[in-house]
Every structure is written in C-alpha cells, then in structure tokens.
C-alpha cells in the first residue's frame, strides 16, 4: 500500500526581537503515516496558536522543516538529509488558507478556475459552474473578491482548492466564516466531494463540529505536538490527557492530589472540597478530573439520601442559554459548569447569587494521572 | 588662495566658446604670471547657450563667442554697447582623419571625403564651424553626394570624438581643436582653404554688468594685442578681420 509518510520537526526562525529577550520560537513536530488513494478525512483539532496551520504549511511545502522527511508514495517531497524540498506546485496539493488569499484581480469564476491546466474552455466552464452550485455561489461569478462577504470569500477559496482534483487536499479552517446551517450543508457537500476524488484530506479546525461530522480520524494538537490521534470516536470518547479532554469538550477540569483510595474509588481534595472518582493511580499521585457539564445535576437542597457520591454546596454565578439548554456556571470553591434543560431550570427557579447543590455521579468523572 | 600677499586678485569671469578652451587656458596662465592681481576664470560652452544665458544677465564679465553674430545680437537687444563689441580672431577649418585612414586628404582635399562612409561635422544649424563646413562642401561641389553621410555633433569637440571612437571616418572641424596638445597626434589634417567658406569671425563683448570691468578690458586688450594674437595663432586661429 502506498503511504503518505510524515515525520518532521519545524521551528520558526526566532524573531528579531528589539528587546533582546529571546523568546523561545514556536515549533511543531509531527509523525504519522496514512494510506494514499482513499477518501480519508483527518481533522487536526487544536487551540488557537497550537500549530495546526504550521503543520499544513509544512505539508504543502511552504515551510521547510529543519529535520525529517515527507514522502508521498515513491515521491520524496521533503528530506532534510538529502536536501530535497519540492516547491508546492510540484507536490500536487490543493490548498485553502486561513485568510483565503483570493486573487483580488480575478473574478470569482477565474479564481475558482485558477488551477486549470490542460482543460478545454468548455470543460473549465462546466466544472466552475458545478462548484459554484455546490458552494452556493451562483450569480457571483463575475464579482471580484472584495465585492464578496467574508463567508462568500471562504467558499470561493474552498471551490478553488478542490477545482483541480489534487492528490492531497489541505484545508485550513474551511468553514469558520459561514453560518451554522450553511456550514452543515457544505460539510456534507465537502464530504461527498472528497469521496468522489478519493484522496486523503487534511482539515485544520478549531471547531469540534468539523471533527465530529467530517473526520474519520481526529488528531489533537497542542503546543506544536500531536497529543492524541485515532478514530474520531476513540478520541472523543477516550481523551488520553487533560489537554485532550479540554479540546474534545470536557467542560470542567480539576487538578488535585489523591488523598486516599478506598475500594478503587479515589478521594481527591480540590480547593478544600472532596471529590470522589474512579482511581487512576495510588494515593499521593497528582490527577486531573474531567467533568462534563451534562453530567452535573442541580438541586435546590441537598439530597443526602441518594447514591450519588459527590454533592457540593455551590453558588450560581452565571447562566447562559445554549439552544434547548441552560449552561450554568457554579462556584463550589472551584468553578463548575452544568448543563440543564430549560424546563428543569425554570422549575428550579434559580438565579445568579442563589445557593444550590451540584450533584455528580462518581462514575461519570474521568480521572487521569498527570504526567 | 596661495597668491602673493595683499589684496585678493580681481577675478574676470569669461564665458567662452568651446573652441577657445586650450588657447584661453594658456592666455590666462600667462596673464596671471604677469599680473598676479588679475585672475581669469573661464567657462567654456556653446555660444548659443551662453547667448541665452546672457540675455538673463548671467554673471560674466566678458563674452567670447565663436561667432560675432551672437554678441552683435545681444547689443542689438540692448544688452551691452557697441563700444564694447570687438573681434579677436577668425576660426580655421581643417579636415582631420585618423592616422591609419586610407582617405587621401592631403592629395584630394575635401574631395577625398567622397569615399568616406561617415563624416563628422558640428551642427550647421547653430555651430559656426558646422556652417563653414557645409559652405566648403557646397563650394567644392560634393555637398549633394556627402550630405547624407554627415553626422552632426553638438559642437566640434563632439565631431572630433565621433572620429576618435572610430565610428566616423573623417571630421571637418576647428583647427584650434586639432592643434591643441591634448588632442593627441594620432591623425592627419588638411587645412581647408579659407576661400571655400565665409570667414569665421570670432567676436566678444564686455558685459555692461561686469563686476570687474577693468579686468575684462585688460584681458580683452591682452587678447587683441600682439602677444594674444600670436598665442591664438599658435593655437590654430587666424587674425581677426580689420
């Protein structure tokens, strides 16, 4: 099986700091292998500044890593030791960039068709038409980029990237500028386009929805390092670290030390409160505790006769609607988020400043040893 | 600067025709030796340009033109008086070819130029030597045959450079130029008989705003005097008409 074989390390040149205080410059290190010729979508999920764009730039050939190699099947795209570094146009990738980089002097249609090579006029026009339909851009073909809205520009950039049927698709935040309904529609279109092209696609995103709906594989990136990768389900169900959990959407993360372990259940002290959770290590170890907001129940009074192990007296700090739910911010010595239905919230009749009880089953708390 | 102790020397500023360059430098040097209180500072250029500048009161004391018509025109426009108008020399025309040239100028004179590919002259439109060259060619009867092969310099110096570069085969230029030591001897020359062209009367004018009128008069007197005349003759000029 032909593989895309990636293993490199890249460090941005240190900035010529006027102050002289030489900050550590940002770097990324990556290593993975992927089959070629399959419509496999990999989403890189990471916080702002974590290095997602940098990884794509190295793959595209826009940056030259200091160490390692990138091999695409038999082709060596990059090899630090052999001093091989193919320019982007000889790698046959299709790219969309975070800032769109539309050509301001070309119309929408000619932007989309920029990559056209060895195609008849009619063929170009037909394919442009198709893509304009796909990306909801009909009627705008003769406009210049500056006559488009932000989201329209992003969609033109997306159409331009897929126009030439590249061997590898690199998309940097392809849908960050469009509204939710449009984005949902476009994600489906994008998915079927990638299927039709039968190429691997690497999509960079800060939006979990992209990973959850597009990705076969999810790669979590933090501080320029891959901290976890696997099938999307695996990654979302079993974040391997606190950083990973924060990325996939665990809402509260508490740090503490295990005071004792009884019957496999740890007693962790956090800000003077006791938290019970499944023990991941022996007493004395540092742990991170992840609590999903939807696992936190609220009550006006303590329900001491239940089987629930964690009951904390709390003060309501914030409330915010979130679709059919209300996200409640609580202060129990530490900050805790709860997600309850609007109905339940109305029945509880709580408001900011009120006292309440937060109730969390120990089984729902994920405790992870800290490295 | 390093002059004899005492008053600073009076400076005579002269606007002079380009063909006077070598002769005038020598004249100034001689005069300075004899009269340390007098210093001649000459600017060389096209007489036509200087005419335009003098109409705007260019700060010169003395104007030495290659063509007496220019100072005369100034006087007729009310700049300067007839009394200050004078002639000091006549220009002489020569044919000059590089040393290795096969043109038999010594034998055939101007007619030898019929077999030249490019002949350099100063522009007849405004340069006196150009006008003289045209007249000479016409009188020799070869104008129609050579006029298409003329290349025109802004002045005689340029015409000479055309030949020096090898781009032109012969030049019809001022004798004063060829006679100068700076010119270098790598060529042959033939004097065009002065019957073939109207006299190139060089005239001058003391300007009414001269800062050093006395100095200007002194220098004029030197030039038109015996010593000056001899010196000019040595540099290829003829005497002025009487």
């Amino acid at each position, binding site marked *: 099986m032909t593989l895309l074989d990636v293993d490199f390390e890249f460090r941005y040149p240190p900035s010529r700091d006027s102050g002289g205080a030489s900050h550590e410059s940002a770097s990324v290190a990556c290593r993975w292998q992927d089959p070629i010729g399959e419509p496999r979508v990999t989403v890189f999920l990471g916080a702002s500044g974590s290095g997602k764009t940098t990884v794509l730039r190295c793959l*595209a*050939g*826009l940056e030259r890593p200091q160490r390692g190699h990138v091999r695409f099947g038999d082709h060596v795209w990059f090899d630090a030791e052999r001093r091989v570094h193919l*320019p*982007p*146009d000889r790698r*046959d*990738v*299709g*790219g969309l*960039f975070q*800032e769109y*980089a539309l*050509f*301001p*002097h070309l119309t929408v249609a000619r932007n989309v068709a*920029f*990559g056209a*090579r060895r195609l008849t006029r009619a063929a170009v026009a037909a394919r442009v038409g198709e893509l304009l339909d796909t990306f909801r851009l009909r009627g705008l073909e003769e406009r210049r980029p500056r006559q488009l809205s932000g989201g329209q520009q992003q969609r033109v950039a997306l159409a*331009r*990237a897929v126009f*030439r049927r*590249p061997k590898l698709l*690199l998309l940097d935040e392809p849908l960050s500028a469009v509204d939710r309904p449009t984005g949902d529609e476009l994600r489906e279109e994008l998915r079927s386009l990638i299927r039709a092209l039968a190429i691997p696609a690497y999509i960079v995103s800060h939006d979990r929805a992209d990973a959850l709906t597009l990705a076969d594989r999810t790669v979590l990136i933090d501080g320029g390092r891959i901290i976890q990768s696997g099938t999307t389900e695996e990654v979302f169900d079993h974040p391997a670290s606190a950083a990973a959990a924060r990325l996939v959407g665990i809402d509260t993360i508490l740090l503490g030390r295990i005071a004792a372990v009884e019957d496999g259940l740890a007693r962790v002290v956090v800000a003077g409160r006791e938290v019970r959770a499944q023990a991941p290590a022996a007493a004395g170890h540092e742990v991170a505790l992840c609590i999903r907001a939807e696992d936190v129940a609220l009550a006006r009074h303590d329900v001491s006769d239940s089987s629930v192990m964690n009951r904390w007296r709390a003060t309501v700090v914030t409330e915010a609607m979130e679709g059919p739910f209300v996200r409640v911010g609580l202060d129990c010595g530490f900050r805790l988020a709860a997600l309850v239905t609007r109905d339940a919230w109305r029945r509880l009749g709580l408001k900011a400043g009120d006292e309440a009880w937060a109730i969390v089953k120990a089984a729902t708390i994920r405790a992870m040893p800290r490295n | 600067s390093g002059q004899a102790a005492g008053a600073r020397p009076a400076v005579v500023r002269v606007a002079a025709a380009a063909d006077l360059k070598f002769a005038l430098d020598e004249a100034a040097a001689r005069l300075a030796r004899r009269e340390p209180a007098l210093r001649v500072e000459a600017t060389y250029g*096209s007489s*036509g*340009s200087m*005419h*335009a500048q003098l109409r705007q009161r260019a700060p010169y004391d003395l104007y030495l033109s290659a063509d007496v018509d220019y100072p005369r*025109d100034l006087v007729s426009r009310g700049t300067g008086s007839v009394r200050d108008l004078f002639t000091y020399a006549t220009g002489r025309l020569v044919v000059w070819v590089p040393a290795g040239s096969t043109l038999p100028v010594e034998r055939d004179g101007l007619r030898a130029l019929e077999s030249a590919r*490019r002949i*350099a002259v100063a*522009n007849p*439109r*405004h*340069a006196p030597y150009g006008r003289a060259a045209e007249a000479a060619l016409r009188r020799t009867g070869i104008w129609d045959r050579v006029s298409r092969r*003329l*290349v*025109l*310099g*802004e002045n005689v110096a*340029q015409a000479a*450079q*055309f030949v020096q*570069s*090898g*781009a*032109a085969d012969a030049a019809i230029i001022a004798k004063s130029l060829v006679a100068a030591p700076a010119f270098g001897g790598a060529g042959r020359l033939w004097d065009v008989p002065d019957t073939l062209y109207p006299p190139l009367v060089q005239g001058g004018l003391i300007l009414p705003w001269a800062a050093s009128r006395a100095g200007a008069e002194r220098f004029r007197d030197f030039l038109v005097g015996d010593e000056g005349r001899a010196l000019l003759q040595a540099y290829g000029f003829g005497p002025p008409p009487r």
Partner: protein
Amino acid sequence: MDWTAILLTVKLAALTTLLLAIVGLPLAYWLATTRRRWRAVVDAAVAVPLLLPPTVLGFYFLMSTGPNTAVGRLYGRLFDGTLPFSFAGILLASVVYNLPFAVRPFASGFAAVDHRLIEAARCLGASGPRTFLTVVLPLSWPAVLAGLVLAFAHTVGEFGVVLMVGGNIPGVTRTIALAIYDDVQALDYASANAASALLVVFAAAVLGVTYSLQRRPLPL
C-alpha cells in the same frame, strides 16, 4: 514641424519601452526574488547609467561600440553595419540608459505584492514563472505602468545619449528632442516653442488617458 523627427521619436520611445518591458521585467523579477548576496550589486549596477551625464555616457557607449571594439566587430559581423549612428544604436543606448527608470519601480512594485497570494498560487499548482505572470505582474501593474511611462517620457526628452550615439542624422537618429535643441541653439525660438507645445499637448493627452485607467483612489 519636423514630422519625420516626431515619427522617429515615437518609434524610438515605443520600441525602447517594449524592450524595457522584455528586459526589465525579468530582471526586476530576479531582483525581487533572488536570495543571492550580489543582488545589491546588480541592483546598483542598473542605476549606474543614471549617475553619469548623458553626453558622457553616450561618449563611453560610443567608445565601447565603435567598429574597432569587440562589441562593434561582433555587431558588424552579425548585422552588417555599425551601432553608432544607426537607429539600432540609439535604441540600445536608450534601453541601457532607461533601465533604472523601469527596473526600480518594477522591483518595488513586485516587492509590495502580498506574499500570501504568491503562496496560494504555488499551492494551486502554478510554477514560479507562471505565478509571476498570472499573479505578481497583474497585481503590480500600477508600478509597472509607472516605470514604463517614466521610461517612455524620458526617451522622448532624452538628448545627450542619443546625440552622441546617433549623430543627429535626419530620419535615422534625429529625434524631436534634438530638433528642438537645435532650434534653441539657433535662436529659432518660434520653432522650438511650437514643437515643445505640440509635444507637451500630445504627451499630456496620452499620459492623462493612461493615468485615468489607474486604480480607484485610496479611501482617505
């Protein structure tokens, strides 16, 4: 009016501009993209013709292209003729002399193009030269136009180099600038004024039209 000279001038200026585009654009491209040390040296070399008085430059040009020089012999063998006193000669001299007027604005225009657009073009499969032609050049055309217009206008008015190299031969190397100069030297101010006025009106019209095609004004 000396229509022959006017026609010749237009031809010279147009051809000079054309050649400057052909020579100057790649040169400017090289200057804008190379990482070599001696970029600065080449950059400076291009500007050298500016520093010498035109007549003197023409003199050196004459000295180095006359029939007895290597260049002159080569040219003679190739084209059967001499560079000095020919149209080809003044054309070549004009190109050399105007190079900085074209190359400097070109290069600074290229340097101002957003690097992200160039990266995007490369990632969409366009090679370096293709990116230059389809992205960099169209985006820097105000600068390119500025360079070409400067060079065109300057060729029309150029006089020292053309006189020295061309020898002021009517119909071959006498441009309108030389004609006007001759008029002034001959104190024929009426002719000079008429020719100058014509030149200015004509050129103003051309430039006016050219510039009105320029970009929309800045939103200030």
